[in-house]
């Protein structure tokens, strides 16, 4: 039985010790309790004792060596134990952490105030929710707070919302809401502002490709025969899944800006553009990268329903890392999208149309879908875009890859 002699923890704040002197030589007999070495800590010199009896087989550190607490410094074993596995002069890693049976971390992350289930409008109880500094800046620059979309917690208007409005070329002293153009809802104003900002600030480049969706259609049809209504997979679900996987492999397209800094995000939150009565909203299907195709199907239906009912959560509105926008249902051949800030790429999706195409060396009628990638040239360039797009194409043309 090999007993590892370790640099002992002598006192709660000890980090390492120096071996001053060995009191035993390799080959000596050792009794439990006998002193085998003298070590120096930053408080004092102490003697360390053997915890087992046996033969002092090997020193693994020399006099003068500084060894971290828990490092193996010697071995006590029976004469015939094989100690060759222990290399000499390696203060090994500190004692392995205790096997920790799974602990469910139930402590809720307390960083943000409790998110409400509703995407709250900035106005509640007749009071406009705006932070003191936002109000001050709005005051100083003559900006009407009521026209602003609040990106803070619970829809609060915060400093950056006011500053973004301040840099817009729109006239500073906006007339009160009663004088606004007919049909210019708050949502329309917000879309206008953001799309203009995107085009102004992000140098877009565009790549298009045709994707043969024939196998994907068959796969989807077959899968759906076995699924319940709320689990039915749509073409868009396939695309969302393909994008999520492609984003994992090409993380340069999963980047969003935080202020002026581009940050590569770990999770893939893929936005789905949803048409509403007075405009468009593109909430994120959160964590699409970790959801199966079936889970995406369920989540996307739920997301669309809640978007139409005004019941989106703030993180669904703000946390997207990539967007998809699909006008396939309208017979559009190709949709070239505008990147949604603070994201840095968007995939526009056109209709799936039967077309003559070459397949397996012969001309056949295949279902072909045009997609367009719009990406921010500050972050990626064409070659990367091409590879990313090629990955999406590959996944959709070999749909079983979507479930592997």
């Amino acid at each position: 039985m090999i007993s590892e002699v370790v640099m002992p923890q002598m006192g709660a704040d000890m980090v390492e010790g120096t071996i001053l002197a060995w009191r035993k030589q390799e080959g000596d007999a050792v009794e439990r309790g006998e002193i085998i070495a003298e070590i120096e800590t930053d408080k004092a010199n102490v003697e360390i004792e053997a915890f087992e009896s046996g033969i002092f087989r090997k020193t693994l550190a020399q006099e003068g060596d500084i060894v971290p607490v828990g490092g193996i410094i010697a071995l006590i074993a029976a004469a015939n134990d094989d100690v060759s596995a222990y290399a000499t002069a390696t203060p090994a890693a500190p004692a392995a952490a205790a096997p920790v049976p799974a602990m469910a971390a139930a402590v809720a992350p307390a960083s943000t105030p409790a998110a409400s289930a509703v995407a709250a409008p900035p106005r509640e109880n007749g009071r406009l929710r705006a932070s003191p500094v936002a109000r001050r800046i709005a005051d100083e620059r003559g900006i009407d707070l009521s026209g602003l979309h609040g990106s803070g917690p619970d829809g609060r208007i915060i400093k950056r919302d006011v500053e973004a409005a301040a840099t817009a070329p729109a006239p500073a002293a906006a007339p009160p809401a009663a004088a606004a153009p007919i049909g210019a809802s708050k949502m329309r104003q917000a879309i206008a502002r953001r799309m203009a900002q995107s085009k102004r600030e992000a140098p877009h480049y565009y790549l298009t490709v045709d994707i043969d969706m024939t196998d994907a259609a068959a796969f989807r049809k077959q899968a759906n025969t076995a699924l319940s209504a709320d689990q039915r997979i749509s073409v868009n679900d396939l695309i969302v899944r393909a994008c999520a996987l492609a984003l994992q492999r090409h993380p340069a397209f999963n980047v969003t800006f935080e202020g002026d800094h581009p940050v590569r995000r770990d999770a893939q939150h893929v936005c789905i553009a949803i048409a509403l009565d007075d405009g468009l909203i593109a909430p994120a299907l959160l964590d699409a990268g970790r959801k199966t195709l079936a889970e995406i199907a369920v989540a996307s239906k739920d997301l669309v329903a809640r978007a139409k009912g005004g019941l989106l959560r703030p993180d669904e509105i703000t946390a997207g890392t990539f967007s998809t926008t699909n006008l396939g249902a309208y017979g559009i051949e190709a949709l070239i999208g505008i990147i949604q800030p603070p994201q840095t790429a968007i995939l526009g999706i056109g209709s799936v149309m039967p077309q003559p195409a070459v397949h397996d060396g012969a001309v056949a009628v295949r279902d072909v879908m045009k997609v367009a990638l719009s990406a921010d040239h500050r972050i990626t360039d064409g070659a990367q875009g091409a590879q990313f797009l090629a990955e999406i194409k590959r996944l959709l043309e070999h749909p079983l890859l979507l479930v592997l």
Partner: protein
Amino acid sequence: MTSITRQDAPRGASDGPPDRTALLRTMMLIRRFEEKTAEMYARGRIKGFLHLYIGEEAVATGAIAALRPDDYIVSHYREHGHALARGVEPRRIMAELYGRATGVSGGRGGSMHLFDREKSFMGGYAIVAGHMPLACGLALAEQYKGTDRIAVTFLGDGAVNEGEFHEALNLAAVWKLPVLFIVENNLYGMGTDQSRVSAVTDIYKRAQAYGIHSEQVDGMKVVAVHDAVARLAKRARDGEGPVFLEARCFRFRGHSMSDAELYRSKEEVERWRPLDPITQLQQTLLAEGAIDAARIAALEAEVDEVSRDAAQFAEESPQPPIESLHHFVYKERADA
């Protein structure tokens, strides 16, 4: 009117002369267990502070063997020996030192805060002398209820200069509380020789200043400790008021695991070796023919196995769940 239910006191193993082999086994168990905790602390399995009872085993063993199982024990932070002597499961003590959910205090107390209510082991405490008033209160409660259960509190020589020591002695004396104070005088309060900081070093005399019946005993002789405590406990139980025992002993290790023992010489420690309570009792029993070497070896193997098993149990035990962080801050009324 909510009234107090009185229960008859259980007859304990305390009546009659002690079983010396049982005393020996308990001391050897404490010794081996403490050595094992020292090893596990050095290996980083036990964290925080660790105060070893090595050398002092006779005090806990002799004293607690002379008490009834339901007499309250209130101890300080060098308490593993008291817990073991009281019969708290070694596995659950070790698991507590490892901070696991299976520990006596659910991993929330650690070495200095062992609690086992079922065994009337009412805690280890970290504030020097801070637990003495609690012992007075437990004794007061039993006096109030009209039982003959007593409270026993262990303290160190370092505690006798704290205000709470004096307050506790005075209150116990003036209200004739059934409490037994046992000072484990190991001559050093952490790193300070008692004689440098105490105006009267015969600690038992301090209790006499409060009119408390007070004795001194050789704390390295387990039978002597047992007999003294049996006698004093009876006085307290019979309503004669508090009692005080100074047990002079020695700890062979440092105050705690980080103590380099710069304050005393090796020679001094070696001088006390022949007085090791385990050695002394073994020699006595061997000389009398009451025990043989084979039996001693068997006891060694037994306590070694118990200690090893305790460490393994602790190692394999689960951590308390993070969700339990806020449990037991407040107790809600059962019928609220």
